[in-house]
């Protein structure tokens, strides 16, 4: 998995995605331009991070969840 490893922790790609959301809510396209990751990987990664509880989605924009904020501290 590109963003969440088998033990449920974010991978380095996952951490880069989480960091891009540190202070703002972003669309996948915005995360892609901020991190330089291809859009398809960002979409797939955000889905994984959401399923793992690290990010939340509202109307196509993604923000850090409490768990996501906590792992960046």
């Amino acid at each position: 998995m590109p963003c969440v490893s088998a033990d449920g922790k974010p991978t380095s790609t996952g951490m880069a995605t989480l960091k891009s959301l540190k202070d703002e809510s972003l669309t996948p396209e915005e995360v892609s331009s901020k991190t330089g990751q291809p859009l398809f990987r960002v979409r797939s990664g955000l889905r994984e991070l959401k399923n793992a509880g690290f990010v939340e989605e509202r109307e196509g924009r993604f923000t850090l969840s409490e768990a996501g904020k906590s792992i960046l501290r």
Partner: protein
Amino acid sequence: MINETKDEEKGLPILGKKAPDFEALTTQGTLRLSDYKGTWLILFSHPADFTPVCTTEFIAFANIYDELRKRNAELLGLSVDSVSSHIAWIRNVEEKMGVKIPFPIIADLNKEVATKYGMIHPEQSKTETVRCVFVIDPESKIRAMLYYPLTTGRNMNEIVRLIDALQTTDKNKVATPANWKPGEPVVVPPPATAEQAEERLKEGYACKDWYLCMKKLPEGE
């Protein structure tokens, strides 16, 4: 209409139709067709990992990857092998041949995606996918298909040329002639009425006759 529906049920893709949806395990995680929305996608199959022609093709696909990305196009491979097999193979290719495979590869062990896209041709192999290429546009429509037999490696220049041709057609509402390359004259769509055919000859195109007119696009188009 009935035949079209039957073809779709059989999983035979049709040019201009929506590409069959999928969610698949790949070497870069679980990917869905919708993850590629807004991007051109070249979905291609190969018969099997650790086989000679496929290895030459993967190196060649890796070599055109940057050119494709400049054109907003992504590559996605597929075979009826496991993720572990794909990983072992691409690590071997990198170690022995010095080429990193940068794009994901679907592990289609249950042949779900292969069946939807008509990638298995039993006269070639009952268990392996033939060498297919599906060009899927940013709206997820199938725009071109290539089917090659197991014995024949594909031509990467043609795949890049195909993307260039389709993007040029979309942008300029023109067609492209045989062996066309970017920068060369394009074909003006044929007139639909006798009146248009008459007018066509006065429009300043390079016409051999009313039905075969070419024009040069502005630089960069």
